């Protein structure tokens, strides 16, 4: 599997995701600077990493979504290349229209960094194929603006087409208000594009992909991708 990581001014999880990709694929990902025009042919996975692009001084991800490279990311998305946006990457994907919905400030208006439980809502995708349906996993979140919102109309589409990837839940898998860290509508933590080739998620799978960091449940996303592309 060949992967590329887009680096914007203010990205700060680009190295972390590169470490995980290198470990899983055995190859270093291509690091692409935001004002490049072209993503080379043969790239199987494009990752938009976490961080604070342009300081997120406007809406999170809004300025980055107008970067040169984003038009190329859209081209690749049209061709079905797998695209993963984590945290700020998810925000960029919604701001650029590649995913539906928007990420608002957390309900408590504070940055939240902690491990959360997630329920895998859809495993029929290149990203989540190694998980069992409804499997409960632990992955950390670290964001100020992770409160997912989507119109009722769009929410119905997400539900009808099984485009909700992950929901925040408690350790026994219950999805309720107590297990919702940031106020996201229906506890949504990650969503797919309509062809399920684009995934945006607020939790950071690369942060629990090393036993020394406390867990490896995040690895399965990347191992699934590897299986799909080799």
């Amino acid at each position, binding site marked *: 599997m060949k992967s590329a990581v887009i680096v914007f*001014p*203010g990205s*700060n*999880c680009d*190295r*972390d995701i590169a*470490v*995980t990709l290198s470990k899983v694929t055995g190859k270093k990902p291509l690091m692409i600077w935001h004002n490049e025009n072209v993503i080379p042919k043969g790239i199987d996975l494009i990752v938009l990493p*976490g*961080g*604070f692009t*342009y*300081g*997120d*001084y406007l809406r999170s991800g809004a300025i980055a979504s107008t970067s040169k490279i984003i038009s190329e990311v859209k081209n690749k998305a049209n061709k079905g290349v797998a695209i993963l946006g984590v945290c700020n990457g998810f925000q960029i994907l919604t701001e650029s229209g590649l995913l539906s919905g928007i990420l608002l400030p957390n309900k408590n208006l*504070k*940055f*939240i*960094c*902690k491990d959360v439980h997630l329920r895998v809502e859809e495993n029929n995708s290149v990203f989540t194929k190694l998980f069992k349906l409804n499997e409960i996993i632990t992955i*950390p979140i*670290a964001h*100020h603006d992770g409160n997912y919102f989507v119109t009722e109309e769009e929410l119905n589409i997400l539900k009808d087409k099984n485009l909700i990837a992950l929901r925040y839940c408690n350790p026994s898998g219950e999805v309720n208000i107590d297990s919702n860290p940031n106020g996201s509508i229906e506890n949504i933590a990650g969503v797919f594009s309509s062809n399920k080739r684009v995934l945006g998620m607020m939790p*950071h799978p*690369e*942060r629990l992909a*090393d036993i*020394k*960091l*406390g867990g490896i449940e995040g690895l399965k996303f990347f191992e699934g991708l590897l299986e799909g592309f080799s």
Partner: protein
Amino acid sequence: MTDTDINKNNKAHGLTENEYNNILKILNGRKPNNLELGIFDVMWSEHCSYKSSKKWLKTLPTKAPWVICGPGENAGVIDVGDNLAIIFKMESHNHPSFIEPYQGAATGVGGILRDVFTMGARPIANMNALRFGDINHKKTKHLLSGVISGIGGYGNCVGVPTVGGEVNFHKSYNGNILVNAMTVGLADKNKIFYSAASGVGNPVIYVGSKTGKDGIHGATMASAEFDDNTEEKRPTVQVGDPFTEKLLIEACLELMATDSIIAIQDMGAAGLTCSTFEMCSKGGTGIELNLDNVPVREKDMSAYDIMLSESQERMLMVVKPEKEELARSIFKKWELDFSVIGYLTDTKKMVLLKNGKEVANLPIDPLAEESPEYDRPWVFKPEEQEIKKYNFDSIHWTKALKILNTCPDLVSREWIWTQYDHMVMGDTIQRPGGDAAVVRIHNSNKAIAITTDTTPRYVSANAYEGGKQAVAESFRNLCSVGATPLAITDNLNFGNPEKPNIMGQLVKSIEGIGIACKELEMPVVSGNVSLYNETDGEAIQPTPTIGAVGLIESIDNMITMGFKNPDDPVFLIGGNNNFNKGWLGQSLFAREVFEREEGAPPNVNLQLEKLNGNFIKRIINKKLINSCHDISDGGIAICLLEMSMTSSIGFTLEIDSGVTNAWLFGEDQGRYIITCENAMSSTIIDLAKKNKISMFKIGSTGGKYISFSRNEKIYLDELKNDNKDWLTNYMSNN
């Protein structure tokens, strides 16, 4: 200007009459113009010149075979093997944080990050030590909320994990909170960058943000007491831009990899003034600056504004002339200002030009090096008696434990550290909440352990013992995770040094720190002094914060504090088996349960401290034990409670004779609690005997409760809920 004008102007600045007369001498009788006076003022402020503390700071031990660079540079540098160096420092941002908590704390983090990456290190961890006023004081919630958001807001955005720290509350900080921020960075041992400028004719380059009118006179403000009009000083607080800082880190590190930089210095306190003087003074050069080339935010900036602005995220560099274009292209890529603002000269003078005219002409050395040094009078009157006699067993341990479990100084800090990104960079091996934060050295099996410590109530009662204790506790925290303590940075926060009792606190705590550093082999490699922490004449508790760093040779051997299995034996290391005794003077138990803030603090026996610490390290590295926690605030009882709550595994004390509250809650020093698997017991006991270490079994892990006496217990769930949610509840109740 007439003489009266000058007098008024002096007072508007922070200079004394003597200092002004000294200026006249340095300028051979010429009266300084307003700009020059402003420059003298900031350079000779307490904040920049250390004039009250210099004499005493010189006595601290600063050398060891592993020290690459001690105090005097932007930060301290130590060797950690494999051609790598750790660069670190702690610095205060107290006054600004009280005036404007979010920006004050945020720019505190920004400033200390720059001190570290200026020297060539990639920052790998942030830490902090915070003191707030009484939990019931009307400003405490506002200040706590703002400071935590500010620290998080800055550190999270630049992408450096904030991995831990300490937060305490006491009424003496009601009008003067403390925000001490520490950064630890990792560098190539052979690529450390210093600030000494050299090479006549070499370009002096300004990079980073534009200069604005913010923070003018920040250093002077930080060198005076507060009063009721403190709010008026808000314009002296700077505004932080962590996004620009992130770009600056990446751009500087990219340039540093190209062997282009001769000298580099961040613009911190006293901005462009202090950075140019330091670079030239250290390098023995002169400088000519054209202020018209300084990137500015607004049009009508005067030379005075430009020289004294403390706008953030700015650096000054001297680069090799042939590398100027390369440097320019790197900063262009990162969309940062880059401007040649002057050249080095051989005159040993600073000449400033504005609109083609000379606006200042000052000799470098007298200003930078011959700044005032005071030997201020001091007195030292330590508390002698441990504590007045009292029946401390008049309360049952279950009640006392519950009180301490919900006291603001011991409740869970989860509400705080969940607001910090403590995992970014993917190397946080031990997250906040343990004895020390542990951050892996990227791409290796080694790690750095970091802790910040001090116990102000001890220092207040006996500054010498308190100074020793601050270092000893940091030593213990590092040993407890299996690290070898290497060096410290000290951040000395005190009141007005012109008062002999405050000066005595400063002098004696430095003496205590010095002796402890020497004995425990952790030299001081960097530091910061913050004086005049007073409001309306009331001083803070003396707070010499120690930031300490240690090395873990193999992360596979690292230890955490939580119990690991039920039915493991629990041992006390370094304690006594007279179960009626324990040191209660200045203890948290006496303060929180009996409202007695009195007596002498516990003594620190440095030889025993070292012996016990080395023993702990040895048994951790031999993989003989499975958990370890040092005993500090709240004594043995709180230590055991924390080990239990972290793991949700209970504990039962097994001492037939019973124990007194003094033994349970006393704060004698140099002690640890460890657990191991049963099979390991005899090996550890033998080793302890051989090394003359006091060690005996006090109980066993297991169950869902804490029990310190037969048939009496408290369930962990109840204790945990009270402890975990306390701060969250406090902050959400208006």
